[in-house]
């Protein structure tokens, strides 16, 4: 069975996110002034062939831990779509 998995990768909360800061500056320039903070991360989708949802989740977990996110600077959240 094919499982669609979404992985959200975000910079750790304690770390300065210069990209988010630059986007916040852009929004202010547009006149959208009520936004207080912006953080920019990555959204990764995977199609995983597995027997069960739990197996697919475990594969996504391993992929995230070993490559998709770097735990020194990022955290991730896995969401099963179907």
């Amino acid at each position: 069975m094919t499982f669609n998995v979404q992985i959200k990768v975000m910079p750790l909360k304690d770390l300065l996110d210069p990209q988010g800061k630059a986007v916040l500056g852009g929004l202010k320039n547009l006149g959208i002034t009520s936004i207080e903070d912006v953080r920019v991360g990555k959204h990764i989708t995977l199609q995983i062939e597995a027997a069960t949802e739990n197996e697919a989740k475990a594969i996504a977990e391993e992929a995230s831990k070993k490559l998709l996110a770097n735990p020194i600077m990022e955290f991730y959240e896995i969401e099963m779509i179907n």
Partner: protein
Amino acid sequence: MKFGVVVFPGSNCDRDMQDALQNDLGKEVIMLWHKDEDISMFSTDDCIVLPGGFSYGDYLRCGAIARFSPMMQSVIDFANKGGKVLGVCNGFQILCESHLLPGVLLQNGHQQFACKNVFIKADNSQALKIPIAHGDGRYYAGEKVLDELETNNQILFRYCNELGVVDMKYNPNGAVRNIAGIRNKQGNVFGMMPHPERATSKLLNNMDGKKIFEILGLN
């Protein structure tokens, strides 16, 4: 001591490194293609260099994909056997992603690509003028790792002014504790953001890069 310089797709300081090592330091240099894996011509007295650039387009994170190239598997084995490895700029990022060095290089705190001369110093050296050229050079590691680096004398270079005063004011990217370069605990793997290979020639009016190679014992 001879040198190997790895060429990844997207490396752009590989020829500068080759030129500096060959013509300014008088070393034998062998260029190593990322898809090859044979480095049997090197002994652990030799040095493999990972040059600057944008290996694999910096996809995912700087250095994250280069870590998986066939040549890197050989370089990781070589380092684990005690062979000398130097990573400059993108090479430093690759060493961190390969877990040969602790920590990570984050996007510069001021959101800009920094391309200029800066001053760096080793613990017992004077200030050395070395060029930087990076967008992701903000060294970061957790407090525990940083304390370990300090205790084991693993911090090779810190950003300073021309007089050798180390202060956040002279830090071009926001790196923690003004770190410009580190080594591993064993002392055979070196990583730094500034480019010593761009400062080894009278023609370029800067020879301080030669002193960097001396400090690293790669002269």
